[in-house]
């Protein structure tokens, strides 16, 4: 192992951080805390860095920086508590689809169970209600299940029976016998270790890691100057020790997330459940660290003063956007038991 950060990625992180600092944050206490989607306000920052080329292989005209770079972009978006203008297009690019799409229905586990695809002549009819990340996209990639298993299908925003509710956040998309043809299947969404779903899970894990990091940094800074009982909050063990434990959790989560991305990039045969581990851990770390950060900053955290409310709202929406962490852990556990059973059987077999 060599766990010293790659200098190129360090520079990339700095550039992203600088660019994202110039994107105005939505400080409203109610309504959407961020603007998601490929045309969102963070998009110019990513475009200025040619972020769309980061993951694309050199053979396809990209920079060949691998999924690791995509995870890093996602982490910085989360750290800045800005909308995610990266994930949908990155997934679309892997499926050979054009940019500018929204994603819907990825919160269901087993994958694709939120929206039902009923076979009809030439395709299916979609019915169901799911979370969507961008209300303005012309096309939506929807997770559903056909006879071939979980897939993403592309649906036009104006398709029959399709309705979008954006009075709530995150917004919701409804399908009522919405027709899709066989040709609109964008690609499979199975648990293949290096497939589109695994890669998307790792990007989302990066985004969640960033949400935890940003909230923690805010809380540590605030506790460094806010004084009570004649001392800084950070000098009170009752405040500082939970923040220290949170930093340990953040570092452990970072280890799991970037290990997963590295395996996808460099040792695809060894990926296994690493994407599910990374996503489940990052989701829970984001929830826990953000909640703790709110507590550390007192009532001000519930106002617009510190901006922590955006992390708090984001943590709730984003930690479940790609599935319930408990369900992911069960899947990881099942795989681990299968492995142990195989190893056990191999150990007792006569040589």
């Amino acid at each position, binding site marked *: *192992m060599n*766990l010293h950060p790659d200098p190129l990625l360090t520079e990339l992180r700095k550039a992203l951080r600088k660019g994202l600092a110039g994107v105005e944050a939505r400080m409203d206490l109610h309504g959407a805390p961020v603007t998601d989607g490929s045309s969102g306000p963070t998009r110019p920052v990513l475009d200025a860095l040619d972020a769309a080329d980061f993951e694309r292989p050199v053979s396809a005209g990209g920079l060949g920086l691998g999924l690791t770079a995509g995870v890093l972009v996602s982490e910085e978006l989360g750290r800045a508590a800005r909308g995610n203008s990266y994930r949908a297009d990155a997934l679309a690019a892997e499926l050979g689809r054009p940019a500018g799409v929204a994603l819907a229905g990825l919160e269901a586990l087993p994958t694709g169970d939120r929206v039902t695809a009923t076979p009809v002549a030439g395709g299916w009819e979609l019915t169901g209600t799911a979370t969507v990340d961008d209300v303005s996209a012309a096309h939506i990639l929807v997770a559903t299940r056909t006879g071939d298993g979980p897939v993403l299908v592309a649906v036009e925003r104006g398709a029959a029976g399709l309705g979008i509710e954006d009075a709530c956040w995150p917004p919701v998309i409804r399908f009522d016998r919405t027709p899709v043809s066989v040709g609109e299947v964008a690609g499979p969404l199975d648990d293949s270790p290096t497939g589109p779903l695994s890669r998307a899970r790792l990007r989302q894990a990066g985004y969640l890691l960033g949400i935890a990091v940003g909230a923690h940094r805010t809380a540590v800074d605030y506790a460094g100057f806010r004084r009570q009982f004649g001392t800084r909050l950070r000098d009170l063990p009752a405040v500082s020790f939970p*923040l220290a434990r949170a930093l340990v959790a953040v570092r452990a989560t970072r280890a799991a997330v970037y290990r997963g991305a*590295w395996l996808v990039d460099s040792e695809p045969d060894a990926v296994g459940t690493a994407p599910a*581990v990374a996503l489940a851990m990052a989701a829970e770390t984001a929830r826990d660290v953000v909640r703790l950060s709110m507590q550390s900053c007192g009532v001000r955290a519930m106002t617009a003063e510190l901006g922590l409310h955006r992390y708090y709202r984001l943590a709730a929406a984003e930690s479940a956007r790609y599935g319930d962490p408990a369900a992911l852990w*069960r899947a*990881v556990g*099942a795989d681990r038991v299968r492995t142990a059973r195989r190893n056990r059987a191999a150990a007792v077999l006569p040589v």
Partner: protein
Amino acid sequence: MRFGFTEDQQQFRAHVREALRSPEVRAAAAEATGADGVEPDARPLYRLLGQLGLLAVHWPVEFGGSDRPPTDAAIVAEELVRAGVPDTFHVNTIQIVGQFLLMAGSEEQKRRYLPALARGESFASVLYTEPDAGSDLGALRAVAEPEGDDYRITGTKVFSLKTRFVDLGLCAARTTPGAGKYQGISLFLVDMKAPGVTVSLIPGIGDEHFHRVDLDSVPVPGGNLIGPRDGGWPLLNEALAVERTGLDYYLKAERWFDTALGALIDDAPDSGHEDRLEQIGRWHGALTADHVLSWEVLTGLAAGRVDQLSAAVAKYHSSELAQSVAAWAVGIPTPGQRADRTGESLILDSAYREAPGLTLSAGTSEVMLQIVTAAFESVGQEEY
């Protein structure tokens, strides 16, 4: 960044694994494993490992090693535990005292002591803690009084492991009392057979017991002073950071987790164990991350970087994880497995009794959190 091992490292691991799977080593490891509060003498096993050249592969050849990279020593440590080798002798003798000598000892001291440690013919223990100086090591009272070029050490050291079996003690003592809490402390290698050394047992709940070492005007040659006189405190802190890779705790956690899975599967081979899957998944994930945290410290040390924050994070995470795994795993063996005294049930019972010490040794969890907290002052934005 690279989260995997190189081909050379994989080949080396395979070589080590093969050596440790020999019937001779397996039998010696079984003999050296304690249970029910009985602590066998593990020295015969370590002599065997010394003959195989496995104890200190990263030390220079002239000092009994094989000149391999420091990261290969970590690979050996991993394989030792996975082969069921009780690791306390390795941790104390090689990873702590031997490493400290390598770092701070003179050429003469290295030549005199390291080869025998590497061969498994000599063993060492750490004599830091005193009855009133635990985490607050600066409160230590043992005194080393000069006697010509030599010293006489008087004091009491407690809670060390394996001490009744060892030949050398790395002892912290005050050479200039009254110089200040953290000043005037020096480090010595003490011959545990010297006159004035009395080692007695402090029985504990684990299978490895604690010791009390009374030092009554123990003669120590001046040549056994390690590092500069009165300059022990900075050395101690550096040594503690080097010691806190978390790898030994990770390996315990991994072994206990695998053992618990083995007990589950033995009891119900065809069951999906649905009621436990979520927790099993969480342990697997936490272990995966923990391994990376340890190797982050290890690869930093191999490159000459001593990062107090990373070491504190790794030590805290790994010891807390191992303790939590032990508390969960002890409930896995069925009454039948416990009654039959299966290997798994004995290991997990022993683990549970050992576990409270993990978050105390090499710096308590509270001390680790204090180090992390202190780092809030210096950690820049880029560290996040």
